[in-house]
């Protein structure tokens, strides 16, 4: 069912029943997620975590030809400094102060739009919402209507607010919805003859991730366009003209891809994240089958697998245990890869599970049914609880789990590296072979009494 005519996309909780809080075993979680409705929980103790605004900004900062206005207090755009380390982008803060929270920030927003228009040459201006604006209810839509007409430029409201969803990934849905509704050209999309190019949807992948996956597509001679991040406004406009869509991470890009399929008739090649040898092979073959290049793909896979297998055979995890911190869409491939490298996954942390991706849990069949599972966006204190008890040899995840080293667990961070594709296998092997504990003075921040407790004492079921 298409949501494109809706003014706003529903949060992940409302759309697919996303569950962001859980602390228990794999068996319990599987049992709970098999039901028609997943029981929502709330944490009575939390640590700060990424929200939809941060995720939205991350992706928007990588769209060429756009200017971003963060409509809120000055701190709501602070992460801009982080996102522009890789490549500068245009961003403004409306810098709302107390007076604006009472009397409204419309005038400042108008000034910001005018500045972005005059100073940047942007073809699209994105206005990112923040808690202040959501609470004081600025009429952003009227301002957009008026200014779009005056300036003849596309102005798009990214209606993030930072507090309506616990699943930060909702930020990608909001971007997708806004881009599909206001930027992707419907006339181009409705053309019967499609361009011989494949959309590769990417929202959060690092450039190292893309480099690895794009190498595969290039080697297979597949013509592609990456979007929405690492793309251009014009590329996004033409998304409907592509001959197919691949979502690199279906949990992030699935919404965009499904809408493209339903509304713009661009076939969605439903792939899984290419982590590990088997999932990478599956990823390539699925695409190759759709594009009619199976034979070529099989030869390519054989060649690449031999090279990657050479690294995997070094089995750097032989006899070792791992706590894995990843997204559910990565989990089954990642677990398999760790096992291929000789290791055993003892516990896992994922940011959320929902009605669409819960089937992945069944694929984690090699894990013990009593394996600890945490569903949490961040929340290192919970992971510290598990790691202090299980004492796995390695903690593998995107963020450096420095806290794990206190318990003798070696943190392996995937930051600035990739685990995708064949290159991902090689890089993970090297990362593990070189991993070690930084000899810092250890000052644990968590109380021993907490670490001795069961990890789920603070998660309660939501009262409706």
């Amino acid at each position, binding site marked *: 069912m298409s949501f494109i005519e809706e003014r706003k996309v529903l949060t992940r909780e409302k759309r697919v029943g996303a569950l962001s809080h859980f602390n228990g075993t794999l068996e319990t979680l599987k049992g709970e997620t098999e039901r028609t409705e997943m029981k929502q929980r709330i944490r*009575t*103790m*939390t*640590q*700060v*975590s*990424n*929200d939809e*605004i*941060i995720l939205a900004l991350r992706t928007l900062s990588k769209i060429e030809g756009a200017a971003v206005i963060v409509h*809120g*207090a*000055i*701190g*709501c755009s*602070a*992460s*801009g*400094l*982080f*996102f*522009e*380390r890789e490549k*500068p982008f*245009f*961003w*403004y*803060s*409306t*810098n709302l*102060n*107390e*007076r604006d*929270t009472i009397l409204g920030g419309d005038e400042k927003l108008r*000034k*910001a739009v005018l*500045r972005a228009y005059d*100073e940047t040459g942007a073809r699209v201006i994105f206005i990112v919402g923040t*808690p*202040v604006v*959501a*609470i004081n209810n600025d009429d952003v839509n009227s301002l957009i209507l008026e200014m779009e007409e005056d300036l003849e430029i596309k102005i798009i409201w990214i209606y993030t607010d*930072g*507090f*309506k969803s*616990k699943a*930060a990934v909702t930020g990608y849905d909001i971007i997708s919805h806004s881009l599909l509704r206001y930027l992707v050209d419907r006339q181009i999309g409705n053309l019967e003859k499609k361009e011989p190019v494949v959309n590769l949807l990417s929202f959060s992948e690092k450039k190292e991730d893309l480099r690895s996956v794009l190498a595969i597509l290039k080697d297979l001679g597949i013509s592609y366009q990456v979007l929405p991040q690492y793309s251009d406004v014009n590329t996004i406009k033409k998304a409907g003209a592509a001959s197919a869509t691949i979502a690199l991470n279906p949990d992030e890009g699935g919404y965009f891809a499904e809408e493209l399929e339903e509304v713009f008739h661009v076939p969605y090649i439903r792939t899984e994240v290419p982590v590990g040898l088997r999932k990478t092979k599956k990823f390539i073959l699925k695409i190759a089958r759709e594009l009619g290049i199976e034979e070529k793909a099989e030869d390519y896979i054989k060649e690449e697998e031999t090279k990657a297998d050479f690294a995997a055979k070094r089995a750097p995890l032989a006899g070792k245990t791992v706590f894995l911190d990843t997204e559910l869409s990565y989990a089954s491939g990642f677990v398999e890869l760790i096992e291929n490298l000789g290791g055993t996954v003892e516990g896992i942390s994922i940011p959320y599970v929902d009605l669409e991706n819960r089937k992945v849990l069944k694929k984690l069949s090699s894990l013990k049914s009593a394996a600890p599972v945490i569903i949490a*966006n*961040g929340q*290192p*204190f919970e992971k510290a609880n598990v790691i202090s008890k299980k004492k796995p040899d390695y903690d593998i995840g995107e*963020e450096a789990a420095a*806290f794990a080293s206190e318990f003798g667990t070696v943190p392996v961070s995937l930051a600035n590296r990739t685990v995708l594709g064949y290159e991902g296998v090689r890089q993970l092997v090297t990362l593990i072979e070189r991993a070690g504990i930084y000899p810092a003075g250890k000052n*644990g*921040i*968590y*109380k021993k*009494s*907490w670490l001795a407790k069961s990890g789920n004492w*603070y998660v309660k079921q939501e009262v409706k």
Partner: protein
Amino acid sequence: MASVIEKPRNGCALHGAVQTIEEIRGVVPIVHSNAGCAVQNYLSKKAGGAYHGGICGYSVPGTAVQERHVIFGGASRLREQIKNTLKVVEGDLYIVLNSCESSMVGDDVSAMAKEAQEQGEPVIDSLLAGFHGDVHAGYEAVMADIMEKIPLVKKIETKKEERLVNIFGILPQQDIYFRGDLAEIKRILEGIGLKANTFFGSSGGVKECEQAGNAALSLVFSRWGLKAAEALNTSCGVPYLVTDIPTGLEEVSGFVNRVLETLHIPEEAARPFLEKEAEEFYYYFDRLEEEFYELHYNRTLALVGDESNVVKLAKFLKHYFLAEIETVIITDFYRQEDLTEDKKAEELKSLAEEIRFSKDRREIRNLLLHSQAELILGSSLEMEAAKKKGIGNLEISYPVYKRAILQKTYTGIRGAVALAEDYVTKIKEMDD
């Protein structure tokens, strides 16, 4: 009216409070905001070269306010969070911080902190919301709150220490050299027989906050430290001295003498120390003499940064290298109009030809492009202007993207030598 800003280099008041607390060992922030507020600061500081440790980043406890808390109020959620943070996170002092949401909704944050206090827990609050200002306002408020409220939750023996001095006004993380600055000021004070409460750095922590009221003097190195010093003055009668951050022999000597005079200690007490410092300073500084003439250190400069640091550097470079300070752009201020009557503004006028106030990256860039500067001393955000002009940019202010700064300082005697090294290196790189 605060205006629209392109690429703001400063976060909000909440961010200022969080980063201040992160740097005081033993203090745990509890942020009453939506999940991402403090993460915005974490990412910004990670990029800008903060090198924070302890309770920071994703380990900061926070209520992760949801829609229901915005609609029905989030006080009970905060109560729950305070209670559980006390159970989970080690700390000697817990500080509940307000945010834009909780301020707009009207959550009674103070009442929740007070409840915990009544149960004997070391919990205080600081109520500045993000929209009340930028990071500097956050430092200003939270340091004043700590000074005012710590006696409510700690048993502090009142015992005046005649040689103890508090240091306020050097902002952790925002001053990219704050660790080194504090260490050097501490070294100088110890050199003249005093003890320094730096609050931050390797010797800082909750104990120093507790002892602040017993100090003989507070030193205020920027306008942002004034409120904390005044709070201590009111509550404990600790006098304060507003002074510039000293760099170079003359400034350090002047600073030392002013401190001693305020404490009624004879200047002679500092003579052996200052003589030794002079010896060290000139030992290094004399080595630049030949190059000073040949490489023409007396360049035309533009400085961009927080007022206290810019004044410090401008004074040094003007005095020792005869540099011409053409443009100074101040990036920390409440409102521009407040500054026209400011004493600092007068001092700045004596140092530079043109004084501007801006937090807007584009405006700063344009000012720099139109200047005659031969070298910029600014942040990484000024790199673009420097490149366009084909000149160097020595990074002296936040953010700094590509340098690791842990102990380095441009303060005091050792900082003066480090500054000279970096300044001369930049000149050589440019002249290549």
